[in-house]
């Protein structure tokens, strides 16, 4: 049962990874990469590694996603300034 759950999570992770790579929309790619980390943290929790799960959930899916979003908004702002000129 647990192994089946882990396999389902792994399949969703692979799908999210493919979406993150293939997606033309950067926002979708960032969210997909956050989903990968979130599911990975659930798998760590199931495999009884709560320390790693906490780190992965906080850094991987929380902070990294936010840093990417900030970077994306900067890129968009730079593009807008280039268009204005």
């Amino acid at each position, binding site marked *: 049962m647990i192994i089946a759950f882990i396999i389902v999570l792994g399949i969703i992770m692979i799908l999210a990874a493919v979406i993150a790579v293939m997606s033309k929309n950067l926002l979708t790619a960032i969210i997909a990469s956050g989903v990968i980390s979130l599911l990975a943290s659930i798998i760590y929790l199931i495999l009884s590694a709560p320390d790693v799960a906490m780190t992965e959930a*906080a850094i991987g899916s929380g902070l990294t996603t936010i*840093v990417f979003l*900030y970077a994306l908004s*900067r890129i968009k*702002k730079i593009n807008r300034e280039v268009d204005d000129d």
Partner: protein
Amino acid sequence: MIKRILIIAILILIVVIFLPFVKNIVLKDSLNSLSSDYIETTSKDLKAANIVTGVVVTFRGLDTLGEVTVLFIATAGVGFLLRRKHEKSGKVKKRPASEILSTGASFLFPLVIFFGVYIFLHGHLTPGGGFQGGVIIASAFLLLLLSNIHFQFNHNILHWVESLSGAIYVLLGLLGLILLGSFLDPRFLPLGTLGKLLSAGAIPLIYSFIGLKVGSELSNILDSLRGAEE
């Protein structure tokens, strides 16, 4: 076309390389000598209930020092690349956050800070520790940054907290070297009883300073990213 074929060939090569490792995995039902030694010594010599913390802070304390250094260099790099441009600020008008976000953030902020402090203070008892607690504190400040557009970090306090906690961390390690003969040995403080808050020597102290350092560094990264955006 050739690119596609090359990619597929590389993927097949990777499978061929890693297949023997996956095939030969044998799940052991007993611990090897190193792990059983870790388990025995953390509860007996260090009195740390959380074995992972005992390994991370004591047996591999030098690794942790290296990780903190890497994080510090990353923060310095981000701060250097995204220096504030004062002359450009005030150009873009920002919309204030909605009522729900600002009320929820002001309600949640102290709770999240409290949770982060709890996690790094109880690092030697429950899962978690300095890194996790520090990240949670940084996420609390992120909530504040998102909900309040006029919020400004006091950079003096941030820099002092970061550099002082880093220096004290190294000093505690040197204290172990001087008093007990090995770097980052936490046993120069009384060990106490297993499972109590004041136990495991200097481990809670060291982990608290790691937590403060990580929290202030990550808040600094978020602040410089946002500051550059304005």
